[in-house]
């Protein structure tokens, strides 16, 4: 039998390293229009962006079942301008609903890269935050923001539709202040993301150049 070392409470060195690794990577690059610097035009555009969120509901995990409830009569997300988009080309928000298997992660990355700037990611449920109940699973990623930038996390297992809407409202706030949307930062920091992605996805067959 092989030797097993439990993770336990992280050591100070580990925490230090983690602080470097998990430092918010998308600080300034994508945010040309944060609250202080944005002009009138950007303010108006942000207003439009904020009130028109086309959601690419990528039903990755069990959380996908919360989306119909959020969208339909009872919780009616459409009153915030949130509506479904059929393809990543039309979408603004990528909703990761729950755990992400490595196999799915590959597709999610592709979908994310096919979306057009400014694009936002909402990750949904404990599994997307830290692995949740799949913390020791051999094929589920544990921290989504290592692979694609995330704007808003919604905690819970599962978050109820109220929390989902709360998450969207938080995202709207970020958009209004010009703090959301990390597409450009992602492109700038592509090497780091690619390194992480390729560590998980063994057979990397994406084109080398960033071409979408």
């Amino acid at each position, binding site marked *: 039998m092989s030797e097993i070392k439990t993770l336990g409470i992280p050591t100070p060195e580990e925490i230090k390293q983690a602080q470097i690794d998990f430092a918010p990577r998308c600080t300034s690059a994508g945010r040309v229009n944060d609250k202080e610097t944005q002009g009138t035009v950007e303010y108006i*555009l942000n207003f*439009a*962006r904020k009130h028109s969120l086309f959601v690419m509901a990528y039903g990755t995990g069990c959380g996908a079942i919360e989306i119909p409830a959020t969208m339909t009569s009872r919780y009616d997300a459409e*009153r*915030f*301008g949130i509506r479904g988009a059929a*393809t990543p*080309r039309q979408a603004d928000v990528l909703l990761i609903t729950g755990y992400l298997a490595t196999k799915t992660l590959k597709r999610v990355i592709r979908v994310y890269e096919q979306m*057009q*700037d400014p694009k936002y990611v909402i990750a949904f449920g404990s599994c997307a935050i830290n692995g949740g109940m799949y913390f020791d699973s051999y094929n589920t990623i544990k921290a989504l923001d290592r692979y694609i930038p995330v704007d808003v996390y919604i905690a819970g297992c599962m978050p109820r539709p109220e929390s989902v809407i709360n998450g969207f409202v938080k995202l709207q706030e970020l958009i209004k202040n010009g703090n959301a949307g990390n597409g450009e930062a992602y492109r700038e920091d592509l090497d780091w993301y690619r390194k992480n992605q390729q560590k998980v996805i063994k057979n990397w067959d994406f084109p080398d150049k960033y071409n979408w």
Partner: protein
Amino acid sequence: MEGILFKILGAFLTAILAFVVGMFYGGLRRKVTARVQNRVGPPVHQNFLDLMKLQSKRTNIAHGFMGHLAPVWIIIAAITVLMFIPILHGDLWFNNLTMKGDLIFLLYMMVFGSLGMALGAGQTGNPNSAMGVSRGLAQLAGFEIPFMLSLIALMLQFKTTSISELMQVQESGSWIIVQNPFAFIAALLASLGMFRYSPFDIVGAPAELASGPRSEFGGKYLGTMMTGGAVFAFIKLVMYVDLFLGGAGNNNLEGIAGTALGLVELLVKTFLLYMIPVFIGLVSPRFRTEQAIQFFWKWPTFFGLLAIGWALYKNGTF
């Protein structure tokens, strides 16, 4: 010189009117849908926000030249048809090129946009797009038949192929909906297919075909398509009002008051007409393509033939 200036200004006014009204109608449709489903729904101006957001997208992708041109064809079709349709009776501002084109031209011009869009969708290489186009074109062959029959009935009954003259006919007499009700029924049933709401929305079914022909368009392309679509919705409504509901602006007031009254009349008529496909769409499931085509070839075509018979009876051929 002044005349030309007025023309250009009038054309701009018409385009802006069509755009604004079309967008608001889209928003109203969403609102009405929401209310029927017991929801609050988005604000009425939601479509403007969507359009603004789409146009403000920072990056865009195109799959090639035809893909790049796809929204252009829609805009061309929308603006051109708009210019050839009388919006108000003999109004200075909205009387663009209305006497220069007839119904056959309008009929063909109206498919121009969808065909161009289909070419753009084809170049993206997305199988869903091609599938949507295939369904759309097949459906076109369905609903154009009753629509054409209804138009032929009108042409025969009033001995004209010009839409302005058909309006003139209704100015003196009663509306065509009274004079030839069957033509109206056929055209109305055809309009359900033209609007592509349920039950004829299999062309761009979001879950099944990933929104069909539009699936590869985002950002400015999708936004421009939305604009064209909004103008087109307005055009169809105005066309139906002109053809069957007596047009608008047929009042005795002079100057700006007459125009304003005419516009209000137009809005009321188009809105009422618009609600028919919207409400039918709300309570309908979805037809498969062949069911849709067969539907159009049954009752609407029957009413169309009846309309032609009625027209021949009325104009004294037999």
